[in-house]
């Protein structure tokens, strides 16, 4: 069984979920896909918006979370890091 997720793991899961949905996702779906509570997700979304990794946009009646280019780059770094950890057994 996997241990408790770190903050960076949660961010990785969130960004990965957005990419998995083609770069945009509804906040509710993001919450389920990333296994987070509502409060937790709100804090993380605000944080990631502040860091310009994601953007919040309104399309019709729905809110969407969209991945930015910076977010894509950061996710790639996280994936490299994950591979690095696995290889070195960190």
């Amino acid at each position, binding site marked *: 069984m996997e241990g408790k997720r770190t903050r960076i793991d949660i961010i990785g899961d969130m960004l990965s979920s957005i990419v998995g949905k083609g770069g945009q996702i509804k906040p509710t779906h993001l919450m389920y896909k990333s296994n987070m509570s509502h409060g937790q997700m709100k804090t993380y979304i605000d944080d990631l918006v502040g860091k310009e990794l994601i953007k919040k946009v309104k399309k019709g009646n729905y809110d969407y979370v969209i991945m930015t280019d910076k977010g894509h780059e950061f996710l790639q770094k996280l994936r*490299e890091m994950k*591979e690095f950890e696995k290889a070195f057994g*960190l």
Partner: protein
Amino acid sequence: MVQVVFSPKWFWGKDIFIDSIALLVLLCIAIFATKYYRIKKSRNYLYLALSFYLIALSFFSKILINFTIYFQVLHTQMIGSIEYTQVILKSSEILAVSGLFFYRLFTLLGLFVLYSIYEKQSKANIILMIYFIIVSIFFSKEEYYIFYLTGFILLGIISNRYYQNYRKNKESTSGMLAASFSVIALSQIFFMFVNFTKHFYVVGEAIQLIGYIGLLAAFVTVLKHGREKNKNRYHR
């Protein structure tokens, strides 16, 4: 006199080139580990970066010593019909001897830091190990093989650790890492016997080069896997 030259004359410069490759590979890994540490703030990344920087620094010291000696202070003497290279350390003696000390110190400290990532140490153990490392370096002044033996033991343990990691996760990169460190450990055996014939130094350097190229290949594969686009999940 402290022995500082282990290379046969025809190999001078070539060993500097091989050590420069090792230095670059080590610096690459250290820089990436530092970058990842900044993201994750995990101590393991910090120690990994530190260990690779220390070993890179040791190679830098070795390159500096060899460069100074090969191109500045070596003189060839003829005795009877046998030509041999005698090391005459003049004004550069202090530089060469202290350089050799730092080369050995940084190598063993770097390997110990790397080892400590996987075998957690108490503060008392760390102090004790640093003491033993310094003692082994002092003994290596007269009996140079002690340094390579200590390096071999540390590299052997680290290689075994990477092999265990490979058995657990079956990742090709872990296997490549285990193989690379095993090859680098093997090179230490050849360096131990340099006094029998200097050709062992050449073999040791060649094996070490293979090890570091393997390490580079493992590192590039890690980055390549990380950049694959078709991963839906961050966790696999």
